[in-house]
């Protein structure tokens, strides 16, 4: 069951951002699936921001109703000693923020169930979905 973000019932702008705290190389690709089931890739995290996405406009409340916003993040742990790979995985923090909802701004945190470690490839993948209602 995805997290939920309650939109305003008007034409006000909704913004989003993501902050990745990790010692590896990281990139995040946000996607938006609208109520008709059509999915579009949004602009990925700037390479220099290492997975984090600065505050950006997502759209207007009345257009976003019933849409699903998702973030796919991948992290490469090259140069991290094998003994510390699992600790790097445990210590990963991703904070997602949506702005301009009915209750103002709302933060969502990546949970343990939303990330997976592929130890041999030194790869962490994380996925977060937020239902806009």
């Amino acid at each position, binding site marked *: 069951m995805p997290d939920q973000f309650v939109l305003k019932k008007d034409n006000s702008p909704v913004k989003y951002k993501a902050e990745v705290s990790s010692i590896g190389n990281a*990139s995040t690709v946000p996607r938006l699936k609208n109520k008709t089931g059509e*999915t579009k890739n949004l602009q990925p995290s700037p390479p220099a921001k290492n997975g984090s996405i600065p505050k950006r406009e997502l759209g207007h409340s009345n257009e976003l109703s019933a849409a699903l916003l998702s973030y796919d993040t991948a992290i490469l742990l090259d140069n991290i000693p094998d003994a510390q790979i699992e600790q790097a995985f445990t210590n990963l*923090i991703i904070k997602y923020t949506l702005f301009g909802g009915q209750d103002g701004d709302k933060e969502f945190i990546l949970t343990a169930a939303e990330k997976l470690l592929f130890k041999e490839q030194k790869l962490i993948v994380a996925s977060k979905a937020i239902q806009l209602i």
Partner: protein
Amino acid sequence: MKKTFLLTPLFHFLITLAVSGQSTVEIEMKDLIVPSSPAFSLLDNNPKTIERPGTIKALALNLVNKAGESGGLPKNLALEFAPFWLFKTPGMNIYKFNGIETDDEGNFKKQHIFSGLRSTSISLGSIFKDSSKTIPVDVNYLAYGIRANLINIRSKKILQEVTKRIVDINTRLSEAITNLNGCTKFTPGTPEYLKCFGESLSKSLKNDSLMKIYRAEYVSLATIRPLFSADLAFASSTAFGNNIYSNHHVYRTGAWLTLALSKPLAKSSDINKQLKSRNYINAYGMLRRMNSNTTKDFSQFTKNRLLDLGGRIEIELDKVSFSVETIRRNDQDNKNLNTGKTVGIIQYRISETLYFLGTFGKDFEKVNNLIALFGINWGFGSNALFQKFR
């Protein structure tokens, strides 16, 4: 002729073994290097397994279990951890981790020379010796130690390249994620989606030859020898007699400092040459202070305070290295026991772990102190004094 060539080094090697066996001071340059686990080093203990808890909870559980097993002070404890890895660090990123500060576009701005402090590690060790051993008392030796990489100064050019590789890898990673379309049948954020996402991305990365090059270059650049590094360690130990807390004495206390200067002989503007270079001029300075209390009965103790200083200047030219090293031992309680050794060393690398070694100079002894030896050395090469960054 060929036989002579083969037999001469062997003959000298055997002679050398006989001569070196006469030395009363047994200290080598590698003994002065900051140890990776100072607590175990102080107890002369080389544990087969070292517990490395990954969380605060695991650390606490480990200590409680060890104390519970022994009914008091833990016996035969070998524990090591770096506090940085035990905690989540909000705001951490790959640049900070590498000691790099960038501007908003990801361009290199400056380096943080103290970033190695993050890898500071703490070691705790104990060893139990019953009364049938050297002392007629059951003694539990308990030691704690800390090791830190104080300073790392790296080439600006190298760090600029590290920064570029980070951006290259992140760009390529974004493209790889964007191009994955096979997981749309699953809902994002679910275990099925994560599995599909991870497996598809792994496959994509394995087939991406450019990404493999970027990743390998990033690792090589990030681990290249610093121009200058300083490492420090401190450890202390206490001996508890008959498992009685009040019956305790400081056993050994030690401090180590290693300074390493490493200048590649390749042109600093040519990064590829620097990465492949095995030609360096190195200078090392080492200091070890060791205080110890020795006893035969656990009631009378004798203090022994030693200050060891070492230095080496070395030229590495691919397979061959020339160096001069000196070690000075100052006995703080008896100046008559002060001694030193200065030698010139030539090493030729036959393979990665096999070295031909020639040493000439003055040994620690006051008489009969000329060293002239040849030999084959396994595992300890010209780079052994260099501790890989992080």
